C-alpha cells in the first residue's frame, strides 16, 4: 500500500491511498483502502489521514476517521495517530501505519509494525525514515 496526505497554501487538505492488497488474497477481496474513513479521510476542519497495514483490522476500527476524531477532541497529530494505532492493536491485534496532517501543517508518520517507509516535504526540507524512531533530514 502507498499513500499521501497534503496541505496546500490555502489550507486545503487531501489524502490518497492505493494498494495491491494482501498477499495471496482471495479473488474479489476488498481491503480498507477504498472504504471511506478506513483507507483515508480528509476534512479541512480537522486534517487528513492515509493508512496502511492489515486491511481487515483497519476496517474494524475505522482507523482514519478514528484518528481525526481524536484530533477533534484536541489531540495533536502524533497523539491522535498513536491512540488510533493503539486501539487497533489492543482491540483486534492489528498492525499498521498512518500519515497524518492538520490544516496548520503539523504532520506525523506513525506505525506499530517494525518498518514503514515514509517521507515528508515542508519548508524546503525533506524528512524521511523506515524503522521506528528514525527521522533523517536533507535539503529538498
Amino acid at each position, binding site marked *: *500500500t*502507498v*499513500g*499521501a*496526505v*497534503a496541505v*496546500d*497554501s*490555502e489550507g*486545503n*487538505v*487531501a*489524502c*490518497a*491511498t*492505493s*494498494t*495491491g*492488497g*494482501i*498477499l*495471496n*488474497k*482471495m*479473488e*474479489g477481496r*476488498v481491503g480498507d*483502502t*477504498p*472504504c471511506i474513513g478506513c*483507507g*483515508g479521510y*480528509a476534512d479541512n476542519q480537522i*486534517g487528513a489521514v*492515509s493508512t*496502511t*497495514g492489515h486491511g481487515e483490522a483497519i476496517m474494524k476500527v475505522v482507523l482514519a476517521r478514528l484518528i481525526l476524531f481524536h484530533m477533534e477532541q484536541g489531540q495533536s497529530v502524533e497523539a491522535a495517530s498513536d491512540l488510533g494505532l493503539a486501539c487497533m492493536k489492543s482491540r483486534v491485534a492489528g*498492525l*499498521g*501505519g498512518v500519515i497524518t*496532517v492538520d*490544516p*496548520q*501543517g*503539523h*504532520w506525523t508518520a506513525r*506505525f*506499530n*509494525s*517494525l*518498518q514503514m*517507509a515514509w*517521507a*515528508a*516535504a*515542508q519548508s524546503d526540507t*525533506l524528512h*524521511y525514515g*523506515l524503522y*521506528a524512531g528514525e527521522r533523517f533530514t536533507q535539503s529538498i
Partner: protein
Amino acid sequence: MLPVVVVHGGAGHVPRERSEMSISGVCSAARAGYAVLQGGGSSMDAVVEAVSQLENNPSFNAGCGSVLNINGDVEMDAFVMDGKTLGNGAVSTVRNIANPIQLARLVMDKTNHACLTAEGANRFARSMGVPEVPQESLITEYSRWRWKQNLEPDANPVECQMGKMG
C-alpha cells in the same frame, strides 16, 4: 508551515536488500508532490502526483509491483478524498490499470458515486479514455516469487507481509 506533503510506502516487512529502494522511492514521491504545491497546485493534485509516482515504482505494493491474489492475478484498490468539499472517489478490485489513483479521482470528479468496483470500474476507465495495460506489466519477479512462496499450505501471507509487531 504550509505547504506540506507526507507520503508512505506501506507498513510491514521491508527486506534489508530492498530498504534503499523504498527510502529513495518515498523521498522522490514527496519531492514530486511538494513541487506541485510550490507550483500552485492543489493538495489533491499533490497527493495524486505523489501516489502515481509510487504506483509506477515497482518497489511498492500498488500499481506496478502489486502483490498477487491467490490465482496469481493483480486486483487493485484506490481512494482519494478532498478536505474542502468532503468529495471522495474510489475503485476496488480493478485490473489492468497502471494508475488506479487517477481512476479514483475520475470517480470523484466525473460521477456522483463514491466507489466503482471490478468490471464496472474497468468499463468506466474505458469510457474516460484511460488506457488498459497488460497484467504482465504490473507483475514483478519479486511479487511472483512472494506469491509462490505463500502458496504453501502452512504459509501465513499476512505475517509474511506485515512482519512482526514494532
